[in-house]
């Protein structure tokens, strides 16, 4: 299979969600060849070199399919970090932060759904499942934001340390620092 065919197959399967650079495809193929997972074949008429998978490559692929994707492979969750910091930053309206995000998440979900509605049931299954993955992820975020809002309604911040600070400055400060570091 040629590099450009690999790229086309990948993009067809994923509905063009993650466009691939052709340079990236050939770099990866060279790395696979170096590691013995693929081998290049003689050049075709067009001067391009096809590749084929090796037995070691097949075994590696089977391992990849058989291994779950770990959470640690994913980037840090900026939204969770933002909400955690909003709670401990004075003057931030945390419910407004939640609502701003929820409206944006909902808008994203609406657009994914519109893409889905545009394709009928007969549309390519691989693409539909990729789209569903994005829909379910956005839905999970929306549900988590609902949960955050409900928790905020019930949440009463710990009493301010200032009045106590006038009497016992050292212990109050220590208490405040301890709470901040726990969050």
């Amino acid at each position, binding site marked *: 299979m040629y590099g450009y065919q690999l790229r086309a197959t990948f993009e067809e399967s994923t509905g063009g969600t993650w466009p691939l650079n052709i340079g990236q495809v050939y770099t990866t193929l060279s790395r696979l060849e170096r590691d013995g997972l693929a081998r290049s074949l003689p050049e075709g008429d067009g001067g391009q070199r096809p590749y084929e998978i090796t037995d070691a490559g097949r075994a590696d692929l089977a391992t990849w399919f058989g291994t779950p994707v770990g959470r640690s492979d994913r980037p840090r969750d900026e939204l969770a970090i933002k909400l955690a910091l909003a709670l401990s930053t004075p003057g931030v309206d945390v419910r407004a932060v939640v*609502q701003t995000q929820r409206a944006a998440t909902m808008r994203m979900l609406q*657009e*994914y*759904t519109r893409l889905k*509605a545009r394709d009928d049931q007969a549309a390519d299954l691989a693409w539909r499942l990729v789209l569903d993955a994005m829909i379910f992820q956005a*839905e999970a975020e929306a549900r988590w934001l609902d949960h955050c809002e409900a928790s905020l309604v019930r949440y009463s911040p710990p009493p301010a340390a200032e009045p106590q600070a006038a009497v016992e400055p050292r212990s109050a400060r220590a208490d405040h620092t301890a709470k901040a570091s726990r969050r």
Partner: protein
Amino acid sequence: MTVLELRDVHRVHGSGETTVHALRGVTLTVDAGELVAVMGPSGSGKSTLLNLAGGLDRPTEGEVAVDGTVLAGCSRRALAALRRRRVGYVFQDLNLLASLTAAENVALPLELDGMGARQARQLAVAALSEVDLDGHGSRFPDELSGGQQQRVAIARALIGQRRLVLADEPTGALDSQTGEAVMRLLRSKVDGGAAGLLVTHEARHAAWADRVVFLRDGVVVDTSGPLDQPDELLTTPGGVQ
């Protein structure tokens, strides 16, 4: 064209210490061909809003109009006729009558409105066909799956000259595939010219709407409409990762 209009609507339940402000100054319009979803936590006023829109409840202040008719100005009889002729309801618990067949359930609003049984049945069979239930007209509700029953409820909600469909958690007890099929159907009915108002706590279902209105403590706190260019989502870094 606006089908449903709520203008500065308030609804207060009870009095004195037990007063509950279910809605506080809600203004909302739903046009023909538009599906609007209402989301919010329990007690935020979603169901009150839907009941007011369907003339099942009256506002304490403000106005509700369906197809230009202000509901407060209607007699009980006129209101009942408007509910029968122009407004369709789809509830989570379906409200299909167990002793009537699917076709009889769908024909019921037309018969109540004075149409002959034969003609009403013909229209009901056609309406069932539109929701992919050809040949199911003579089955009783308990002979149908949950998804099929919900489709009967949608056929009944939109039979005749109905202009407004009100749906309260219509995908409630259904699995995700069947729930999606119900939303597709509701969407296509609205695309066909009806106005739809949907109450749901499921973001995935609310996403089938053109606009999503967020209610909190009886107040509209935000509205989410579509992006200008949907395809941007698939290429911008904030979209898919």
